[in-house]
C-alpha cells in the first residue's frame, strides 16, 4: 500500500485502485481470507453454476449498496449507521429481486432462489462498515464490486471442485444462467454415476472450502507473504 493512499484517502486521483482490486480478488478475499459469507458459500456451491449465480447476484448488491453508502456517508450519523446500512442492503436486494423477476425472468428462475439469501450474508455489511462508510464514492464502488467478484470467483471454484467430485460434471446448466451461447461450458469430466455423493452434500462444502483455504495459504507462504487472518476491518 502506498503511503499516499493511506494518508489522503479523500483524494480520488491518488486512491490505490490496484490495491483495492488485489485485496478483493486475493489478498483479502472474502471467503478464503476474511472467512465471511459462509452461509451462502456452504449452501449454494453444489455446482459451479450455482456458485457463479450466487456470486454475481451478491456482487451486484454489494456494488450498489457501497455506492449508496459512500454517497450518503456524511449524512449518516454513527449511532444509526447500522440500521441504515441494513436498510440499504435490504432495499437493494428487494430491488434486484423485483426487477429481475419482471424483466429477466429466465435468469430469475435460476437465480431467484439465491437473491433473498444475500440479506443473510454479512459480507456486504462488513464492507460497508469497513470501507464505504469512510471512503469516497468511486473507490467504494470499486471495493464493493471487486469484493463481490472475489466472492464470485471463490464460490465458483468451490462449486467446481464439489461438482467435479460429486457429479462428474462442470458448469452443468450454465446455459440456463448465462444464455444458450454458453452451452460449450457444460462439460462432463467423469463418467455418469461415478461421483462421490458426499461432495455435493453439506459435509462436502466444509471439506472443499477447508482444503482450498489451506491451498491458498500454501501458495501465499511460497510467495513469501506473511500469513495473517484477514479481518473485515483491515482495509
Amino acid at each position: 500500500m502506498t503511503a499516499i493512499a493511506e494518508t489522503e484517502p479523500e483524494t480520488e486521483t491518488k486512491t490505490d485502485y490496484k490495491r483495492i482490486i488485489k485485496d478483493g480478488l486475493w489478498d483479502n478475499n472474502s471467503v478464503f481470507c476474511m472467512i465471511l459469507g459462509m452461509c451462502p458459500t456452504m449452501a449454494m456451491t453444489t455446482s459451479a453454476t450455482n456458485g457463479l449465480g450466487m456470486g454475481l447476484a451478491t456482487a451486484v448488491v454489494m456494488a450498489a449498496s457501497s455506492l449508496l453508502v459512500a454517497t450518503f456517508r456524511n449524512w449518516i450519523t454513527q449511532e444509526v449507521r447500522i440500521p441504515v446500512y441494513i436498510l440499504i442492503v435490504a432495499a437493494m436486494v428487494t430491488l434486484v429481486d423485483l426487477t429481475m423477476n419482471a424483466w429477466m425472468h429466465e435468469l430469475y428462475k435460476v437465480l431467484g432462489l439465491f437473491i433473498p439469501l444475500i440479506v443473510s450474508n454479512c459480507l456486504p455489511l462488513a464492507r460497508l462498515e469497513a470501507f464505504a462508510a469512510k471512503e469516497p464514492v468511486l473507490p467504494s464502488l470499486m471495493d464493493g464490486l471487486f469484493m463481490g467478484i472475489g466472492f464470485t470467483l471463490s464460490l465458483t471454484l468451490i462449486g467446481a471442485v464439489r461438482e467435479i467430485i460429486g457429479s462428474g460434471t462442470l458448469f452443468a446448466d450454465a446455459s440456463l444462467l448465462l444464455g444458450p451461447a454458453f452451452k460449450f461450458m457444460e462439460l462432463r469430466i467423469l463418467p455418469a454415476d461415478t461421483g462421490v455423493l458426499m461432495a455435493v452434500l453439506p459435509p462436502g462444502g466444509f471439506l472443499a472450502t477447508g482444503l482450498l483455504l489451506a491451498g491458498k495459504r500454501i501458495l501465499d507462504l511460497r510467495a513469501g507473504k506473511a500469513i495473517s487472518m484477514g479481518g473485515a476491518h483491515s482495509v
Partner: protein
Amino acid sequence: MSGQPSKHHSPFKHAGILGGFCLGFGIVLAVTDILTADAILQRGDDDKRTSLDQVIPAGLHDNNPLADTIAVTGHDGKPVTVFRATRDRKVTAVAYEIEGNGYAGEVRLMLGVDAEGRVLGVRPLAHKETPGLGDKIEPSKTDWISRFTGLSLGNPPVEKWKVKKDGGQFDQFSGATITPRGVVGAIRGGLEFFAANKARLVEVR
C-alpha cells in the same frame, strides 16, 4: 469504531435521519413494485402455462386451460384447482397439482389426465430431494417420470401402483426409494381423485 469523533446529536436528529432513509427507500421500493407488478403477474402465468403445456398436449384443446379452472375438494378436504382443456366444448383433459412425501419434504407435481382417466404426463414443479439420488424424478436428469404416460388406475391394477421394493411394478432408484415411493403414491392418489370426481371434472358445459 472508526476514527470519526462522535458529535453529540439529539436523539431526534438520529430518528430523523433513520426515518428519512426509511421513507426514501420505502418510496423507491413502492414505485418499483408498482412498475413491476403487472410484468411479474404475467411471468407467473407464463410459467404455469409452460408446465400445463407439458402435461396436456396442445392438440387436445382449443381453449385456454389456464383460464378455465374449477375448484374441487380433494379427499383430504383441501380444495384442488383443476385446469380443464376442452375441444368443441367437451372436456378432453384436466390437469392439477398433486403432492407426495419425498425424502426432504413434499414433492409437488403437475398431473395431466385425459377424459378416460389415463395419465397424459407428470412433471415435478418443486422438490428438495437429494441431488444425484432423489432428483432423478426430473425429466432433465432421467426419463423415469415419462414411464407413467398412458397408465391408468386399472393399468396396472391398483395393488401394483407401488415401487418394486413394496411389491409394485415401478422402479426405484439405487440408493433412493423414498422419493419414487412418494411420487408413485402421489400419482395414484391423483388418479383416485380423478375417479372420485370424474362426473364433475368432465361435465359438458
